[in-house]
């Protein structure tokens, strides 16, 4: 599969078989040292960031971007989707939807129907929009607090 940007890939049934579609990617499926990745061109992370804080994941991504290494993060954690600009959703073995992350996340009903949740700040913003309390999606606590309690 030809992908030209960094991507989060989420599937309803996390499955190593899916990695076969990305055979030219180097698979990371356990703890790793970032130095060991810097000589790779393409990396796919398989469900490895569960225990890491977002800032730490962002740090890893930035190092890879600085070294022009293309990466995919295959996860079942929708919060991690917000850390890349492109998102692919698989329902079992087939791509259900893909595109810019925020565009894909607008398909709330579709995502929930297949068993995925929205990232918390996206869901909170959408609910607040329903109550006409905000008019946009805010991903940052402080920004949303500032909008709500001006």
């Amino acid at each position, binding site marked *: 599969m030809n992908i030209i940007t960094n991507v989060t890939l989420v599937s*309803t*049934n*996390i*499955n*190593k*078989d899916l990695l076969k579609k990305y055979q030219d990617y180097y698979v990371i499926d356990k703890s790793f040292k970032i130095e060991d990745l810097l000589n790779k061109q393409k990396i796919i992370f398989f*469900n490895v960031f*569960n*225990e890491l*804080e977002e800032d730490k994941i962002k740090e890893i991504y930035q190092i890879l971007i600085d070294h022009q290494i293309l990466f995919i993060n295959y996860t*079942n*954690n*929708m*919060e991690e989707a917000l850390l890349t600009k492109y998102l692919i959703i698989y329902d079992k073995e087939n791509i259900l939807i893909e595109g810019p992350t925020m565009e894909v996340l607008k398909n709330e009903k579709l995502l*929930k129907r*297949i*068993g*995925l*949740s929205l*990232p*918390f*700040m996206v*869901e*909170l913003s959408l*609910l*607040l929009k329903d*109550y006409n*309390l905000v008019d946009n999606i805010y991903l940052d*606590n*402080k920004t*949303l*607090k500032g909008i*709500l*309690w001006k």
Partner: protein
Amino acid sequence: MEINSLLKEYEIIGLISSYELKIKDGYVKDLSIKDISKALKMVLLDDSYLDKKISDLTLNELFKIDLLTKFNNDLIVVGNLSKYLNYKDIEYFKKLLLKLNNSYHKKIVVIDNDIKVFFNLVKMIVVIKDKKVLYTTNDFFDNNLYKYTKCPKIISFINEVNSSKVILNKTIDIYELIKDIYRSV
């Protein structure tokens, strides 16, 4: 307090620790489980899995098979729900574990690094490292807990808001949070 005493008192506890799924390879049909068809249904699988090899299963399916092998135990230990299951499945299995506790008096240990898995399920959270209990709490808003694991977004949002003049109720339910925000803006 040791885990056994905590279990005696609280019956369902959440452990923040690492967990590895270990199931012997072989065919699902060869697992020694009474009424296996019914057990498969309870873990959202069907009879087509009887002829599958354990080593061919996905992480999601392995979790389910691991759980059904434990139905007859007095103590059920499950782990990594957040890593192996999607959101819908997590909510289903939390209800199933509660039922196993309420109706069949099973004691339950849930091991995970994602505190959200413990919401509306466990009565005590225990942090374990190198087999030692480092910390226990029954309060999801106990900031000391987040020295050991990631803070759920709903809690960090409420903490952020409450650091100013606005005071929101400490809730783990997004709909309660919305009502509270609506009342306070």
